[in-house]
């Protein structure tokens, strides 16, 4: 990539100034005059039937404007394809503590809260099931969705024909991969290693809580200021839920205060819309409290993974079998694709001749679930990358060497049948090996603290078959306006978009204006997720820029007396290639006087919708030539200190090296890596949603659900983000993505380091001090015996 002037440079983010001055307006800041405050009334039971709802006392409270309940609201679906969730349960059955049963709007938040407390609801409690293994049984203690078989599917949403396990009433989906013959592989193996790993439910903990303000204009147009990770998807859901024309729904989500998957599906918008409808179109704000966020705003799936590997003495893994129970909570719509896609966290790294994978989506009476940075890959990787170290120890092999021996290489087919390209995992492994001084034992001091080193690999796919769009407009002064189908949730897409457009037109980045997040002015596109934005929107912008330039060149060609094909553009001048002195300023192509329209063309606009189509997999074997657009790779090395008396773990040094293709903005990629690794420290050491015996969440605040603070990460010299760019042939300037893969290897790397330090392996996340002490005591007793 020679001669690039904006792409590949660490320019400051285009949104940094507005955010640093406090001027950036987030949905949760948004207020309008006459606005009502909505409140959702929620179930205190995990599984129960609503018997009666008495709203009389609440209605009498001055300032209460509207009340709507499960008893008087028609079924309003909250998903387009597989739909197990409605605004209120139409069958009047609540399925987790926090399920919505009524909503109201009042003049102030205080009145709304008081009114909510005055609504009397009688329930008939049902047996509930919280344990995924019990829920998975053929005769479970509770059947959570008795009418599951009647729920509608939409094939493009769920990948392919969704398979149920008809004998297990709480199983919503069963996904399979089959390659070779695992039993034959196990028979040929010199060593069999079998184990069970667990990851708990987590909260995204975006610092901005979800909030929506919805109102109807006099002409019936619905406007929503929404905390939407994907405004176009949110719009589809709202149009479908309320049977509204897409022409009359506008969602605006300019800046979102973090999402990580959690704001991917509407949580507050539908309630704001419903209440506004009932209040004759008045603006209604529904904002979640932090406590509600923990209870109800969708969490990460919990997984139980059974892994069995057959290995040859030389370290070759000949057979791998994985069975995963995915706890999707009371509602699994947001997690339904996850039950399939978590599989691809298991296929992208290692070359294994015989492979069998089964994942099951299982309902429990706990919080509903959705995507969370990595889409199932972190959960599967937790099992696999612990297992790799267990195998290495049993074989007496270096764990790095074991991984290297089994890695996929460019040109191989992965276990799903897709050809491997731009595989950077081995280079990443080499870099962190060097950084952590792998061959040097950690320095041990006197006292209870023991040090250890660990490494792990990670991979993440980007799903094929999703579109992104861009519209590029040339302004009469040669500035460029880019409208794209995504929005700025913190990932930096507006900056990436500006850099790519600036490079294409040969202008400085301050000549680019980027618009995203507003469905009324930005083109349609699929989700802002799956580490897909830089690649898809970047490619769409590049093609849209070419289209716009073609128009400009056609206008300039006669004026310069050459063919359009011989023209190029830089510094707002169209010039003849090889003869830069033969040029015309862009502004001279517009009239009158370089301000208005382009004669004969009116506006100079290029547009593009970009997609890499998927080839649907065989439902029996999961095999396909193209499930993923590409895979991203990475390796992480960590040195920890473990207090053998208290079990406390300190991360002393940490380096992650990731291959996300050629970076458009290296500093922003580093930022993603540093943030992704830190988020994963929390998942490794302390984050989990804790439930009581009645299914009530016990730690619904930042006080009780700890996320990493600035004092929990190593000092800057010991916390390193490295890039190993392997250019992606079809990526914009060689780029892929980076946002998810960087949050995948840390937990197993930390687990491997703890094992290296004190010789115990905790297989259920998080690795708390209590678990370490218990394991150390057990080990001590065993060795005494």
């Amino acid at each position, binding site marked *: 990539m020679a001669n690039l002037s904006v792409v590949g440079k660490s320019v*400051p983010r285009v949104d940094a100034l507005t955010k*640093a001055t406090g001027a950036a307006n987030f949905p949760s800041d948004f207020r309008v005059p006459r606005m009502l405050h909505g409140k959702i009334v929620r179930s205190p039971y995990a599984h129960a039937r609503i018997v009666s709802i008495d709203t009389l006392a609440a209605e009498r409270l001055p300032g209460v404007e509207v009340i709507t309940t499960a008893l008087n609201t028609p079924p309003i679906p909250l998903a387009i394809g597989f739909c197990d969730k409605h605004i209120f349960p139409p069958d009047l059955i609540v399925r987790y503590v926090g399920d919505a049963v009524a909503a109201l709007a009042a003049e102030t938040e205080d009145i709304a809260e008081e009114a909510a407390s005055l609504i009397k609801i009688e329930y008939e409690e049902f047996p509930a099931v919280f344990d995924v293994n019990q829920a998975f049984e053929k005769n479970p203690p509770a059947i959570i969705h008795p009418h599951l078989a009647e729920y509608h599917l939409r094939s493009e949403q769920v990948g392919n024909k969704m398979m149920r396990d008809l004998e297990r009433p709480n199983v919503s989906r069963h996904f399979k991969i089959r390659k070779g013959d695992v039993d034959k592989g196990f028979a040929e193996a010199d060593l069999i290693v079998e184990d069970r790993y667990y990851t708990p439910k987590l909260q995204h903990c975006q610092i901005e809580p979800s909030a929506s303000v919805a109102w109807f204009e006099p002409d019936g147009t619905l406007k929503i200021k929404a905390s939407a990770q994907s405004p176009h998807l949110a719009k589809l859901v709202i149009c479908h839920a309320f049977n509204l024309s897409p022409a009359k729904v506008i969602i605006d989500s300019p800046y979102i205060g*973090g999402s990580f998957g959690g704001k991917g599906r509407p949580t507050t918008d539908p309630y704001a819309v419903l209440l506004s409808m009932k209040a004759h179109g008045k603006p209604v704000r529904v904002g979640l409290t932090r406590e509600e966020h923990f209870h109800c705003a969708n969490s990460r799936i919990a997984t139980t993974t059974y892994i069995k590997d057959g290995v040859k003495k030389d370290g070759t893994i000949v057979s791998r079998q994985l069975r995963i129970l995915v706890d999707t909570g009371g509602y699994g719509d947001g997690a339904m694709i996850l039950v399939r896609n978590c599989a691809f966290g298991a296929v992208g790294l290692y070359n294994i001749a015989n492979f069998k994978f089964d994942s099951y989506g299982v309902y429990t009476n706990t919080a509903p679930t959705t995507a969370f940075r990595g889409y199932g890959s972190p959960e599967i990787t937790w099992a696999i990358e612990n297992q790799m170290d267990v195998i290495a120890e049993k074989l007496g092999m270096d764990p790095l060497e074991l991984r290297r021996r089994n890695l996929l290489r460019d040109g191989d087919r992965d276990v799903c049948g897709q050809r491997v390209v731009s595989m950077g995992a081995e280079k990443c492994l080499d870099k962190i090996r060097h950084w952590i001084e792998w061959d040097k034992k950690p320095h041990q001091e006197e006292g209870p603290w023991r040090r250890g080193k660990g490494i792990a690999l990670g991979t993440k796919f980007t799903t094929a078959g999703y579109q992104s769009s861009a519209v590029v407009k040339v302004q009469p002064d040669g500035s460029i306006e880019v409208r794209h189908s995504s929005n700025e949730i913190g990932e930096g897409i507006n900056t990436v978009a500006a850099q790519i457009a600036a490079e294409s037109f040969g202008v400085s980045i301050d000549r680019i204006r980027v618009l995203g997040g507003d469905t009324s002015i930005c083109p349609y596109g699929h989700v802002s997720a799956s580490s897909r934005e830089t690649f898809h929107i970047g490619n769409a912008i590049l093609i849209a820029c070419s289209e716009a330039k073609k128009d400009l060149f056609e206008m300039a060609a006669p004026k310069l007396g050459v063919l359009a094909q011989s023209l190029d553009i830089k510094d707002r001048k169209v010039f003849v290639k090889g003869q830069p002195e033969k040029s015309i300023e862009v502004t001279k192509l517009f009239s009158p006087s370089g301000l208005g329209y382009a004669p004969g063309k009116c506006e100079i606009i290029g547009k593009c919708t970009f997609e890499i189509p998927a080839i649907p997999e065989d439902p029996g074997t999961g095999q396909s030539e193209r499930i993923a657009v590409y895979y991203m790779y990475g390796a992480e090395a960590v040195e920890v200190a473990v207090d053998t008396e208290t079990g406390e773990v300190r991360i002393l040094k940490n380096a992650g090296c990731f291959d996300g293709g050629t970076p458009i903005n290296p500093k922003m990629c580093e930022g993603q890596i540093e*943030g992704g690794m830190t988020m994963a420290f929390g998942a490794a050491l302390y984050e989990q949603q804790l439930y009581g015996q009645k299914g009530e969440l016990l730690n619904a*605040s930042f006080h009780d659900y700890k996320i990493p603070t600035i004092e929990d990460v190593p*000092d800057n010299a010991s916390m390193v983000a490295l890039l190993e760019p392997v250019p992606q042939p079809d990526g914009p300037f060689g780029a892929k993505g980076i946002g998810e893969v960087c949050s995948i290897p840390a937990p197993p790397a930390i687990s491997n380091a703890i094992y290296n330090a004190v010789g115990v392996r905790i297989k259920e996340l998080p690795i708390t001090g209590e678990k370490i002490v218990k394991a150390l005591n057990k080990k001590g007793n065993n060795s005494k015996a």
Partner: protein
Amino acid sequence: MKQLMHFKVNGKNYDLAVEPNRTLLEVLTEEIGLTGTKMGCNEGDCGACTVIVDSRAVCSCLILAIEAQNITIETIEGLASAGQLHPLQQAFIDCGAIQCGYCTPGMIMAAKALLDKNPDPTETDSRRALQGNLCRCTGYVKIVEAIMTAREVMKGSSSKKKL
């Protein structure tokens, strides 16, 4: 019942009729319209609503407005002067310390309170001062880098003033 209250925010005086149970955060964002201060938890756990009250960084969600009368209150909107960004704002931009940006105003205010008190903090001092400010995007690396950068810039300009 509303009471007449007087606030001094970013050097400006405000006389407002406010319910006595309103927090300083609510008055700043909803009454005065300074929405740069962010609500993240309303429980004093996340630091997104950090403002400087009487030279101390505090969570504005934990203070009743009635307690914040007649004392100097600084918010993110008051940091830039005469169109010139505060060195911390510039450093946050230059170092890439901002991602989603929701924690940013609170981070910058907490860092300013530190630098106002201690012009030469170490990395450890900075981490201690910002331990109550949560960020879910950045991993804090570039935030620390920004504070260290601003420290150097501010040391440079204050030594110039002395000359």
